[in-house]
């Protein structure tokens, strides 16, 4: 008879391992890092396919006493794991033949890579779909919901995209769609898909536990990056826990530091990264930076819980984005005037009470950023003028109202259109119309107002950042307004920074954040140097100078 090293028995949805001798317990803890180190003798594991596979492997080395039924049950879990794994690998092969889907409108097709995402979600039941902006993540989600098992489905979207989703879903499929109104639950009319805004989730929180929604899809899932710290996060967690299929959509799932991925996975598959303590111990270098982003990115892919294809991966031609970084002279008097105040605040940050210190530090950051924006606004306007006088349509991104005011004053003759936090939805729509129809060549946009905005790409290929954001993904989202299907020209993105004020430290923080998220989102990708070609801007500047000379001569 084979020697045994303890026992293993099924108890409900757990496996219980008992009478484990110390030397085997030590091995067990090395191999299963989530087993608490202080636990001895008895250990429990969730009874699912993945644990079944790991446990049967451990039992090959250290056999344990088991009943025949349990042995069959464990073997079943292992086989399930292997066949699931094989099925998912087959889906991702280029020669995979996806099933035909009914329910598309006449003339609409699901592309091969979209079908792969759909079938992987059905097989894995949880997926973070990180396809590049413009690869049709909305259509992948719509295609998923053509499978009857996924209905009814809840789709959670950003406020300004609820109508756009409704339109896309009904143009693409025959699914019936209901837009949720308000934050007070009412009797839902029959429909296949229910469109929630993130801001509505909390109001509906108590209706989510009944499992009515078989699927939940989160558009721009980075909205949930603060995890359970927000009301919408707590509501989303309930929605996720009750749903069978969970899909997160975002080309930019990590907005800031790498640790955000733990919060995102909480809503898609909360077992994959373990508890926060596990995650922190195993993956993080401190409380927000991932020690090895590439390893984490590879792990998520290997678990088939993340899928990301670039435009190049699916055979689309993409010219690189021409990124120009220019040093702009700040107006030093603006920076000086904050300096005095800053000095007082700085004093508080070192000598004040704990609360005072924290607040003073934040105020200093905000003030510095504001002053930096204002100090360079004039020269930013001059730079943009060069482009405008050459008839180049420009998207100009900023953050502070005072900065917009300077731009509006300096560039008045170009009748700028505004798309910022100060405009109503109707005013924004009008601004977009004026720009798209060519009534103005300048659209001033707030850094954080642009997500999902579509249509500018037919009109414009140049974006100027007159102020920086703290998150590199915000810049990416703004560039994504132009860099999308329908754009015929290569994109130029110009960052106009100063070497004084808030810009230099912000640039370094942006670098750290980008380098983290790139590792997780695109592990193993050969890093490309930034493509930077100033020749066009230089030519425009020369043209500008010679036209000024002519004007003077005349």
């Amino acid at each position, binding site marked *: 008879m084979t020697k045994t090293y303890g026992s293993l028995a099924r108890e409900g949805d757990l496996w219980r391992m008992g009478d484990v001798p110390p030397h085997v317990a030590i091995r067990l803890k090395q191999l299963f890092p989530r087993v608490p180190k202080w636990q001895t003798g008895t250990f429990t594991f969730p009874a699912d396919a993945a644990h079944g596979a790991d446990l049967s492997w451990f039992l090959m080395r250290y056999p344990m006493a088991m009943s025949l039924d349990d042995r069959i049950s464990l073997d079943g879990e292992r086989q399930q794991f292997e066949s699931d794994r094989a099925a998912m690998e087959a889906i991702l092969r280029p020669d995979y033949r996806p099933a035909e889907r009914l329910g598309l409108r006449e003339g609409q097709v699901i592309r091969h890579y979209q079908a792969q995402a759909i079938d992987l979600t059905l097989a894995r039941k949880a997926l973070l779909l990180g396809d590049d902006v413009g690869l049709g993540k909305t259509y992948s989600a719509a295609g998923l919901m053509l499978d009857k098992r996924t209905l009814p489905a809840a789709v959670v979207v950003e406020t300004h995209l609820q109508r756009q989703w409704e339109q896309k879903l009904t143009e693409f499929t025959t699914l019936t769609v209901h837009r949720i109104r308000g934050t007070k639950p009412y009797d839902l009319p029959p429909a296949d898909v229910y469109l929630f805004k993130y801001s509505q989730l909390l109001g509906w929180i108590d209706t989510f536990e009944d499992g009515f929604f078989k699927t939940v899809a989160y558009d721009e899932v980075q909205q949930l990056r603060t995890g359970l710290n927000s009301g919408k996060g707590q509501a989303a967690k309930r929605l996720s826990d009750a749903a069978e299929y969970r899909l997160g959509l975002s080309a930019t799932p990590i907005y800031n530091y790498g640790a955000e991925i733990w919060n995102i996975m909480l809503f898609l598959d909360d077992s994959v990264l373990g508890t926060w303590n596990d995650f922190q111990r195993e993956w993080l270098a401190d409380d927000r930076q991932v020690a090895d982003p590439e390893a984490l990115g590879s792990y998520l892919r290997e678990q088939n819980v993340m899928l990301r294809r670039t435009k190049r991966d699916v055979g689309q031609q993409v010219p690189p984005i021409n990124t120009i970084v220019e040093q702009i002279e700040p107006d030093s008097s603006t920076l000086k005037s904050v300096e005095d105040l800053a000095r007082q605040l700085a004093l508080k940050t070192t000598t004040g009470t704990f609360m005072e210190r924290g607040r003073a530090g934040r105020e200093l950051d905000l003030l510095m950023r504001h002053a930096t924006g204002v100090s360079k606004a004039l020269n930013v306007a001059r730079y943009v003028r060069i482009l405008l006088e050459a008839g180049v349509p420009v998207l100009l991104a900023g953050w502070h109202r005072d900065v917009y005011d300077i731009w509006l004053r300096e560039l008045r003759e170009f009748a700028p259109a505004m798309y910022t936090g100060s405009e109503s939805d109707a005013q924004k729509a009008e601004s977009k119309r004026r720009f798209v129809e060519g009534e103005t060549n300048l659209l001033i946009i707030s850094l954080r107002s642009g997500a999902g905005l579509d249509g500018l790409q037919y009109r414009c290929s140049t974006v100027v950042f007159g102020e920086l954001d703290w998150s590199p993904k915000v810049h990416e989202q703004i560039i994504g307004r132009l860099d999308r299907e329908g754009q015929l020209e290569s994109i130029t993105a110009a960052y106009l920074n100063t070497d004084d004020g808030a810009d230099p430290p912000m*640039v370094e923080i942006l670098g750290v954040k980008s380098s983290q998220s790139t590792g997780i989102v695109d592990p193993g990708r050969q890093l490309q*140097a930034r493509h*930077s070609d100033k020749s066009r801007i230089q030519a425009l500047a020369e043209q500008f100078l010679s036209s000024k000379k002519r004007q003077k001569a005349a």
Partner: protein
Amino acid sequence: MSHTYQIGQLIDFLQRQRLDAVREKRAQAQLSDALTAEGWSFKREYPLGEQGVVDFLVEVGGCRVALELKAKAQRMRIYRQLERYAEHPDVDCLLLLTGTAMALPATIHGKPAGVISLGGGWL
């Protein structure tokens, strides 16, 4: 081609690199690969005797550039370090590639010096 033009090209090249902004060893390996791929002539971990070991010594048209890469720099300490490098006869000019926002004087011991932002490459 003049030195200044070529050093300008080296600076432009360095400004465009996207290097790991957290793990310095990795960033150094990435930079070494990139320098090799672009055909720059350089030595890694170049010993400067008592003055220490500089991360890279890049030869640009007869001019030897000491290039130090620091993900996170303590400003005063790195300045002292560059000062020591500047004392060595093998060094003609100094470049610091760093993820800490900082400035350097235009020359250190009469040798031209410059800072390049590690974060800038990621824009």
